[in-house]
């Protein structure tokens, strides 16, 4: 069983929403669509569901062309950000609703509802009405309804966005476990990189209507193949710095240059984009070969165990994340260090040239 998008594109009133996209999703997998608001996540899901017909391209379900087929005729379930339940019906009847529409027997319905409720840990809530439940339980009820009819494709559009932080944390940990057993193809849209990492499976990173990378989630996070993926799949964002190699030196800004060694040795002369993650900036140099930056600190944020540094360096805004609580003066200058092992080098157009060596030795 698989869902295949072949050369799908979508334009609305002359503006491109989805650029030429090819994607194959396999049975029993969790697939996260990760991107910012209006990057094309919902457009792509609506096409997968058959709610919208693409401007060009084909959708294959188990090898059969289903492009333009009405959603009612396909076994698809969709869960939205706003959890939708029938308020006057019990949880049991809410979960049973799609099966009643399919005119299944009472016996079949009872078995299916109880099985799904057990999976969602809702057995002792079956007699309650949705409004007697907490937000997390209400969304579990909506999720149970999406699973009960044995859909081959379940589309979840930011299903946890309206829930409290702690509830989200719990459901995120539960969702992969709950869905593993069902064997369906799951597509899960989110704006949050942490959510993608916790869900695991595969991820497709989206940017302005294009999939920039698709692959195993942890792999895409650690090994982004272009600067856009690195930016989309990091929170706070990866930091970037324009560098130039010229006559045996690496120039970071007008005033900062170092002899080209180590990771810079193999580079041809020219301009590049260097990228590194916020947690790799350090207050003290760990090795002699660390790069040194004189940055300007605008604001710090303290989380209790870590400190976020909001910095500027040579017209770039950076974020640093350091362990411990550091009370630093806003508006001051701050020396920071970066180990060469933590630097990704991208071409000026954004394609990855050299992955950071700490990733390769992971």
């Amino acid at each position, binding site marked *: 069983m698989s869902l295949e998008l072949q050369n799908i594109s979508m334009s609305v009133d002359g503006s491109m929403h989805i650029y030429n996209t090819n994607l194959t999703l396999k049975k029993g997998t969790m697939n996260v669509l990760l991107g*910012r*608001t*209006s990057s094309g996540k919902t457009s792509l899901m609506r096409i997968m569901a058959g709610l919208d017909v693409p401007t060009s391209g084909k959708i294959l379900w188990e090898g059969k062309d289903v492009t333009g087929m009405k959603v009612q005729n396909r076994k698809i379930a969709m869960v939205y950000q706003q959890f939708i339940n029938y308020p006057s019906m019990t949880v049991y009847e809410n979960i049973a609703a799609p099966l009643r529409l399919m005119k299944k027997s009472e016996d079949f319905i009872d078995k299916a509802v109880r099985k799904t409720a057990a999976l969602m840990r809702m057995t002792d809530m079956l007699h309650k009405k949705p409004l007697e439940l*907490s*937000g997390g339980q209400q969304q579990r009820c909506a999720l149970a309804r999406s699973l009960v009819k044995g859909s081959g494709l379940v589309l979840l559009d930011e299903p946890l966005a309206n829930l*409290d*932080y*702690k*509830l989200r*944390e719990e459901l995120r*940990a539960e969702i992969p476990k709950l869905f593993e057993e069902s064997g369906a193809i799951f597509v899960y849209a989110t*704006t*949050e*990189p*942490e959510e993608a*990492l*916790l869900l*695991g499976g595969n991820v497709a990173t989206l940017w302005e209507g294009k999939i920039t990378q698709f692959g195993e989630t*942890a792999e895409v*996070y650690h090994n982004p193949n272009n600067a856009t993926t690195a930016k989309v799949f*990091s*929170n*706070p*964002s990866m930091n970037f710095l324009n560098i130039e190699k010229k006559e045996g030196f690496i120039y970071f800004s007008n005033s900062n240059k170092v002899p080209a060694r180590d990771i810079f040795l193999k580079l041809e002369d020219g301009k590049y984009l260097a990228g590194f*993650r916020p*947690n790799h900036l350090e207050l003290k140099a760990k090795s002699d070969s660390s790069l040194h930056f004189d940055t300007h600190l*605008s*604001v710090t*944020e*303290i*989380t*209790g*165990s870590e400190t*976020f540094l*909001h910095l500027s360096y040579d017209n770039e805004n950076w*974020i640093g*994340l350091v362990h411990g*609580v550091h009370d630093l003066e*806003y508006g001051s200058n701050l020396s920071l260090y970066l180990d060469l092992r933590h630097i990704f080098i991208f071409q000026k157009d954004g394609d990855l040239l050299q992955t950071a060596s*700490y990733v390769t030795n992971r």
Partner: protein
Amino acid sequence: MARITLSNLAHSYVKDPQNDKDYALRELNHEWEDGAAYALLGPSGCGKSTLLNIISGIVTPSHGRILFDETDVTFADTTDRNIAQVFQFPVVYDTMTVQQNLEFPLKNRGKDAKYIAQRVASIARSIQVEDILHKKAQGLSADQKQKISLGRGMVREDVNAILFDEPLTVIDPHMKWELRTQLKALHKELKHTMIFVTHDQTEALTFADKVVVMNVGEVVQIGTPQELFEKPAHTFVGYFIGSPGMNIIDVEITGKEATLLDAKLELNQSYSNLKGKLELGIRPEFMTLCEEGCGIKIEIIRIEDVAHHKIVRARYDNKDINIIVEEDVIITKTMNNMTFDMDKVNIYENSWLVEGEKL
């Protein structure tokens, strides 16, 4: 700007409240210092919105008083309290330009044109909307509109306080960083008394000088981010702050000896007269995973690779245990023991923190 005093304040939506359960907000005494940034943090239904609505004047408390400096405002209208508010969803006038939106609160108060121009220019620079000042608000994205709402909330210098009700909920993660930084910088510059309501611990901790943690109508702890992190006053705070939250393990204590299911630990403090249910709290950040035999044996369930660290999910004594391991640590199959940083161990009696005697 003003100091805000809550005196024996409580609120019940029920006419004749009988017990604690009838109170949306249980009795509370607190002073909000002039010029400080506070966060009200808790899950939905914890009473944080009720408290905010009492401060803004939308709700009149059923018990107690609220003072702005020395003035009793318990029964004063919202408009008479001279406060600014920013809500979860942007409130902007679509037909007005960004500039007109930012000018609006000042024009309403009859400020002179020169002052208005100067304030609007300054706020526009702070929230980085100078390049869209002459655009109609209509065509802007939700992020940009919320930025304008924040700017409008902060354009007046003479307000007693600025109240924020989950203002970043609808904002994309990357934009939250930017808006939070701007809020912080503006607070530093203008020194308004700010109260920020949220269910998101990161927002609360990063924004506030002091965080007020609430649960079921009750203030459980007020403290700096560091205090909440290192010394949670209640196991709820330990669970709610931190991701994952504090690990809680059943324990028996005699003096400075703690007995877990199948292990004994020497505590840094000595305890006496402990009654009731005892628990040991230790944060995932303050634990180490190590080789067989070096500590207490746990059952490893799975290891999650989460950005710049790994979360080890484990079980001990029928409870979930989470341990945070740095990204460059390689976890081998034989690493199935945990140890604690004993300085960071807290002891709870009936869910409340108890301090022992230092030896």
